[in-house]
């Protein structure tokens, strides 16, 4: 028996998963908020250690990649396969640049003796230790999400190329896009909370 694929059901399923992601990161942000209210001064001092320019650059990169993915979803519905492929490729490239930036950022911190359980943090002010602990956990978890998102986008790219994702059936592309936008959405909150506090 041939059954029609349930496109809107696939999307609802994706959203249900995204809700759990929202609660996951929401929980971490609550943790941040509680420690921020206790150690406001230490958080502000620690925040100065982070490279604003690099944070800003990564924000712009992610915003652009989100736009590229949204454009790809539009393109597939307009039957413009080449534009869809270009949008996806651009987004994947952006994700890669984001990760390279993150690598240098973390590397620089670790060289400066700022990493979980480091001598400098353990013997320093408690609030700063908390700040960098949260920094590594939240940006690390976000980084893992970038890698998963890129994998989904790469799979979508291949499927569009091979004609398995078409203007009639593009739930996989749409859901990969939703995941990527959520990763962007989370970064929108990470950026001011970690990089811009004064």
């Amino acid at each position, binding site marked *: 028996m041939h059954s029609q694929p349930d496109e809107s059901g696939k999307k609802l399923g994706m959203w249900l998963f995204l809700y759990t992601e*929202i609660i996951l990161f929401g929980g971490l942000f609550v943790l941040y908020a509680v420690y921020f209210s206790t150690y406001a001064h230490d958080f502000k001092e620690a925040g100065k250690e982070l490279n604003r320019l690099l944070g800003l650059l990564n924000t712009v990169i992610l915003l652009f990649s989100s*736009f590229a993915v949204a454009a790809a979803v539009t393109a597939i519905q307009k039957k413009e396969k080449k534009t869809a492929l270009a949008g996806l490729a651009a987004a994947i490239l952006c994700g890669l640049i984001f990760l390279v930036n993150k690598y240098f950022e973390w590397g620089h911190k670790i060289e400066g003796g700022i990493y979980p359980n480091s001598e400098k943090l353990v013997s320093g002010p408690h609030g700063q230790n908390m700040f960098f602990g949260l920094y590594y956990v939240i940006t690390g978890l976000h980084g893992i999400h970038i890698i998963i998102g890129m994998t989904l986008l790469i799979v979508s790219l291949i499927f569009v190329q091979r004609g398995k994702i078409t203007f009639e059936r593009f739930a996989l592309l749409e859901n990969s896009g939703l995941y990527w936008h959520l990763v962007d959405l989370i970064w929108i*909150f990470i950026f001011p909370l970690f990089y*811009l506090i004064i």
Partner: protein
Amino acid sequence: MKGGSKRPNMEKSHQLHFLEYRTLFFIFLLLLMFTGITVGVSYIDLGRLNVWVSLLIASIKGSLVLLFFMHMKYEGRTLILSFLGTIFFLFIMISFTFWDVSFR
């Protein structure tokens, strides 16, 4: 002709609705503008207000991504209500945590 290829109900459930490139690019520009504003505001010392202002701007940016890039503005009741439900539970989590922490 039962079970023919044309199924109006199916078509309706996965409606072909998309935003033009121009609209998407305009949203991208708005997001860049709000990013600029949030960086600018961070250099002005507003005391405790700084956090609230940056959270407000982040929420505006988040809403733009959600409504347009994630297409939520054009979704049906199921998605909109379930999303609001999630935000409601997030709100409960945040407020009960602070309720606990501030009266310890």
